[in-house]
């Protein structure tokens, strides 16, 4: 059984949320008896961006609640979408009269729960729209399947839409921006270890002492290939080649990137990897105009990381990424 610092696996999310709001009362507060974290920031009659999903991905999403980014985040149980009543409540507390825009990661559970909440909110007269993030190219996409998963790219979506909302854009403008953003963003990850949810005794998958797995998800979902551990250079080569294949040829060579630690991989290794990303992008005559490195969308204590590329099709993307915000973890 993997060692974890906790009291009772059943209350881990509840206690985590309390720990967050007790630690950062100037930025966030909890909606009592819910899994909702809301910013303390005054309402200003702008569109509210609300995100959420299962817990275990910290700092996502509560660490990105604050002025200039998310209005609220809904925390479900570990790796489990929050329920419609919770999402509905978050929509209600976040609304500033200009409507609420939901950022949903593409999992059946998240889609269905957010959809039900959206229906309920609309019945109560709140304007709601949403975008489904599906940046993980490890999974084959098709019209007839669930499609790709939403992973680390979600953080860029929060940042860019949060900036648009802060700038006073309408919900329709934000929807258009989101629809322009999603197709330009791709992510793929790799793991050195599996992940064990609190209270369970076995990891999602087990890798040998010299093995890695490409294409894992952020909930312990297995990936597309298992191999011997490679050098950082070779890992970057595999991920970058795979990512670049997914972008249509185009004269725009400007990108923003995320090197996202999955939870158990130290920053030192993330920066060694980032160094190889920068070098190989340069070799490909591609420019990186913005980099974010660190544990942003994690999978509990999993060792590994993911690489996200966002093509900067719209100058607004870069402007939004560079803007300052007042959150715990951006």
């Amino acid at each position: 059984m993997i060692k974890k610092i906790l009291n009772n696996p059943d209350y881990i999310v509840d206690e985590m949320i309390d720990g967050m709001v007790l630690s950062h009362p100037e930025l966030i507060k909890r909606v009592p008896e819910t899994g909702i974290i809301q910013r303390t920031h005054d309402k200003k009659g702008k569109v509210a961006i609300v995100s959420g999903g299962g817990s275990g991905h910290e700092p996502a999403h509560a660490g990105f609640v604050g002025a200039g980014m998310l209005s609220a985040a809904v925390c479900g149980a570990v790796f489990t979408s929050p329920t419609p009543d919770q999402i509905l409540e978050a929509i209600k507390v976040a609304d500033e009269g200009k409507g609420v825009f939901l950022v949903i990661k593409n999992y059946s559970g998240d889609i269905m729960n957010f959809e039900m909440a959206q229906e309920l909110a609309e019945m109560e007269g709140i304007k709601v729209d949403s975008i489904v993030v599906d940046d993980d190219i490890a999974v084959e996409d098709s019209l007839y399947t669930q499609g790709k998963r939403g992973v680390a790219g979600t953080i860029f979506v929060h940042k860019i839409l949060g900036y648009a909302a802060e700038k006073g854009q309408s919900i329709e403008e934000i929807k258009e921006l989101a629809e322009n953003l999603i197709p330009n963003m791709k992510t793929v990850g790799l793991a050195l270890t599996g992940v064990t949810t609190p209270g369970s005794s076995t990891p999602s998958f087990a890798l040998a002492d010299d093995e890695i797995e490409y294409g894992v998800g952020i909930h312990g979902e297995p990936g597309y290939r298992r191999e011997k551990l490679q050098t950082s250079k070779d890992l970057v080569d595999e991920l970058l080649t795979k990512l670049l294949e997914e972008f249509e040829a185009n004269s725009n060579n400007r990108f923003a990137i995320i090197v996202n630690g999955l939870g158990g991989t130290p920053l030192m290794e993330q920066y060694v990897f980032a160094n190889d990303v920068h070098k190989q992008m340069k070799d490909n005559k591609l420019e990186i105009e913005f980099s974010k490195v660190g544990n942003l969308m994690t999978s509990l204590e999993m060792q590994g990381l993911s690489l996200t590329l966002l093509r900067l099709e719209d100058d607004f993307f870069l402007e939004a990424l560079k803007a300052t915000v007042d959150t715990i973890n951006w």
Partner: protein
Amino acid sequence: MDKTEKWINWITHFTEVIIEHKDDLNGLDSAIGDGDHGSNMDRGVKAVKEKIDGADYDELTDLFKDIGMRLVSKVGGASGPLYGSAFISMAKAAKESQEPAVLLEAGLEGVVKRGKADPGEKTMVDVWHPVVNSVKEGSLTQSVIDDALESTKEMKATKGRASYLGERSIGHIDPGAQSSAYLFTTLLEAGVLDD
């Protein structure tokens, strides 16, 4: 016998079976999903039990509505909205009819409306669909349920988390299909379909 009693017996029995098989369901979900289907359902049925234990239900619609709302607000993930929608849909149908076939068909519609899965996509629908057809024909037996469940093993998942595995989802029973199999086995055992 009270008209809701058989149905309450069913749900009570289903609750016990889910709690008993929590780890098995987590195990099935670990193979092709995220390993939490047992924990999700366990949380849900316990919340349902807490709500209906000791309560009096004159009308089936109230019973189903309480079950559906509890599942929706306690389970989360994919199975919460799906099972929840099934019971909420049954609650609506129960205003017009008491017929198991009519009610269960409404339940299936609820699942399909929410999850948009067709039969053959390796989901709980692959149990619900043949079972509801058999109920309509008055021919539901345990082996119908077992066969439906078993059939998910060779399917390739194209909906739900297991779809991320593509071909590698083949060879495993779908966890939601397993919990649905428990649902219908306990339905048979509770005698809901007997007249």
